[in-house]
């Protein structure tokens, strides 16, 4: 069996996945902190204010990366859910379900920072602007997946139902996004979006670094949530008993 297949096979066994991810998490958190600090420093201190919106554009360095993350996590959740649904890979199911709260979190961050950014630029906290509206609909999609998962008693059935819903949601995501954008141009004309204007390199670098930082946050958080769900589900199994008795968790 070639190494990649061997790795995938090993990843499938709960104890191995638990140990492997356990070693990985500290590094991921480390990378997140370093990248975030560097991104924030560049974004908040070094980068010039936007010539149009002035200082408030600095909110872009948290708003845009979390908006990207909210969509990326939904897509990843749906793909992992698909793998769990079709090949009944339990770890894929757990990773998909553990991604949902993180995705909802990033959507909330995007909405909050977007509305706080709107106050100085558009004069109100909420404008039915294309991006904010589709973020809001995305939040409802996340709440639907989380709500459906928590409505079932049996965890495996809950994971499969939520994964199926995530898949249906993924098919609809681009349609929702473009219909909202088209709807927005009908009613208001295209509003000046930060990413619309061409980005000066000194502002592009912090944006990309922050985007990278949020990916490591997601990876670290996902693995720690997946580990707990694994322990919770296998608490009666031997490997958990041995693990906890050694106290090396």
């Amino acid at each position: 069996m070639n190494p990649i297949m061997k790795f995938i096979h090993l990843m499938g066994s709960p104890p191995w996945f638990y140990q492997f991810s356990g070693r990985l998490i500290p590094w991921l958190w480390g990378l997140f902190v370093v990248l975030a600090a560097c991104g924030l420093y560049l974004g908040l201190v070094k980068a010039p204010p936007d010539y149009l919106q002035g200082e408030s554009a600095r909110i872009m360095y948290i708003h845009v990366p979390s908006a990207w993350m909210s969509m990326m996590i939904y897509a990843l959740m749906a793909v992992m859910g698909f793998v769990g649904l079709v090949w009944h890979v339990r770890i894929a199911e757990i990773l998909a379900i553990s991604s949902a709260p993180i995705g909802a979190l990033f959507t909330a961050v995007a909405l909050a920072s977007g509305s706080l950014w709107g106050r100085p630029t558009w004069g109100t906290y909420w404008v039915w602007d294309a991006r904010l509206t589709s973020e809001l609909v995305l939040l409802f999609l996340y709440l639907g997946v989380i709500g459906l998962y928590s409505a079932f008693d049996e965890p495996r059935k809950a994971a499969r139902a939520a994964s199926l819903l995530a898949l249906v949601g993924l098919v609809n995501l681009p349609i929702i996004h473009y219909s909202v954008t088209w709807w927005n141009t009908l009613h208001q004309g295209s509003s000046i979006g930060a990413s619309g204007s061409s980005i000066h390199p000194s502002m592009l670098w912090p944006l990309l670094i922050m985007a990278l930082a949020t990916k490591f946050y997601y990876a670290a958080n996902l693995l720690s949530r997946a580990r707990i769900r694994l322990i919770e589900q296998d608490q009666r199994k031997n490997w958990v008993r041995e693990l906890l008795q050694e106290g090396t968790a």
Partner: protein
Amino acid sequence: MLSVSDLTLERYFEPVFRPVSFTLKAGRALLITGANGSGKTTLIRLLAGVLRPSQGEARCDFERRVYIGHQLAVKDDLSVRENLHFMGKFQGRGASDIEDVIHHVGLRRVASQLARTLSAGQRKRCALARLLLSEASLWLLDEPYSNLDPQGMSMLDGMLHRHLQAGGACVLTTHGSLLPQGLETQELRLESGAAT
């Protein structure tokens, strides 16, 4: 022939019953026994293809299966005749057989009443009519004798007997005394799935 190897289903990450293996040839009946909650219904639903096993497999080369569970799939708002008519059409049977089947299961008198007005025994007979309507060679019956009066039980014995004679096979669960009379049966006792 139905061959099952190392079959079980996990619920809440624990097997509902200890993995089972058996083979069931044409003309034979398998009796599944075990205490309440030992997973009899789960096993029979696994064999019916409603549930997907967490482990092991069930290879069945009987070309069609029919399953009668605790829920009898009889519509309260339809009459007995309409219920059977739907069951028959759903399996591609002509309407002519419906009247003979109604007579056979002894529901001729109530044939045009709504199923809502039937007694538990009559509803069970209405559900058992599904066996006659389907040409399935593998019968999967979950406690078929419950709610049946003595005539009903002997009717079912007769049906089973004829089915096995004709080269069919049958898996039925039962608890306690309600057993098919005069049938060659092999038995399978389910142990509850202890924590592995």
